[in-house]
């Protein structure tokens, strides 16, 4: 089904069309929500809220961008705003990670690096983290990121660059891993 046709049917309240739209886009929305939340319940909550808003606001979709871009721009907004509310949850999670690593036996280079990288990514400001996750983890282009986050292309590149610089600082002790 053509995108325009699908949107028209969703606007008309066609339940099958709603499900078709959902099936088409849910995977990328959930993946991004999970990458950012690091928690299944939160990721589900963010993804569900995204589609509730999509169906609620489908009348406002003017087709200037692709439907997927519009949906994911709603998703990023839901995720970023949602994460602000669960800051405490994330801090608790990081605390548990630290406790777990402190209690572990012999250190192995690989897991230690992964853990450190994970914590360094967690510690990034959410806007930088979103750009980093979208680009370096999920493989979005800067064009897609800028459209979905409503920012200039240059801003997306600058934020990715700052995110990487912070990660590089945090991982300085592992410099040998990429210098060799």
């Amino acid at each position, binding site marked *: 089904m053509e995108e325009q046709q699908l949107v028209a049917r969703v606007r008309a309240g066609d339940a099958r069309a709603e499900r078709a739209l959902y099936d088409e886009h849910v995977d990328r929305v959930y993946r991004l929500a*999970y990458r950012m939340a690091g928690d299944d319940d939160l990721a589900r909550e963010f993804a*569900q809220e995204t589609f*509730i808003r999509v169906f609620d606001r489908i009348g406002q979709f003017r087709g200037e961008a692709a439907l997927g871009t519009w949906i994911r721009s709603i998703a990023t907004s839901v995720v970023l705003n949602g994460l602000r509310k669960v800051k405490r949850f994330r801090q608790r999670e990081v605390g548990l990670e630290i406790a777990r690593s402190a209690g572990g036996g012999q250190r192995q280079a690989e897991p230690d690096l992964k853990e450190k990288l994970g914590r360094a990514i967690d510690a990034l400001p*959410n806007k930088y983290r979103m750009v980093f*996750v979208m680009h*370096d983890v999920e493989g979005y282009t800067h064009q897609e990121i800028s459209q979905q986050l409503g920012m200039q292309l240059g801003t997306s590149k600058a934020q990715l660059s700052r995110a990487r610089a912070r990660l590089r600082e945090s991982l300085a002790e592992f410099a040998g891993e*990429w210098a060799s």
Partner: protein
Amino acid sequence: MTEERFQEFLRAEARDYNEPPATPTDEMWRGIEAERAAREGRRWPQRWHHRAVRSPWVRWSVGIAAALVVGIGIGRFSGQGMPSGTQMAADSAEQAAESAPSPYRWVAAEHLGQVEIFLTGFQVDARAGIPLQSTTAPAQQLLSTTRLLLDSPASEDVQMRALLEDVELVLAQIAQLEGDEGEGEEEELDLIDDNIDQRSVLLRLQTAMTAEAGVAGGQGAL
């Protein structure tokens, strides 16, 4: 060269970061259907639904306040001639609510005028790094009125509803500023500032006012 290697290294190592499981497609769909049905079932208090922390008495008091807002609107505008002074500027924002019943349009127009003044000041201060300690109370007041309007016939107009929803989001963020830990304050301010720009909130408020000035006065006086 080292930078390129670092980027490659990062991409390879970060691949496992919060690796998502298989998407629970059907489960989430059932959740969406249930939630939408629940929201549809109580259409009037829909705006409050996801703010589950609000207790029933808050809903009652908000309902009463809504009645007061409308009553004030009717009392203020229905028996009088042209509004004066600052009301003139605010009145022009009513364009977006053209299809709504008249008293609600007046209230919405005045409210949007106040929001525009507040957000303009907020953005200037935030960008200049001026402390924003006194912004919470007015943001909360404006937020309350915005939510009342969202549940009134003023929001039956699609454009007005979209504008009010975006205004609500931005005001809610500002209203929460002082409650947050200092560490994230700068990020919060950036996010709010971006939201105002991305959603073109000020531009849309100003456009609504300019359009109304043309309709009301036929001279584009604003």
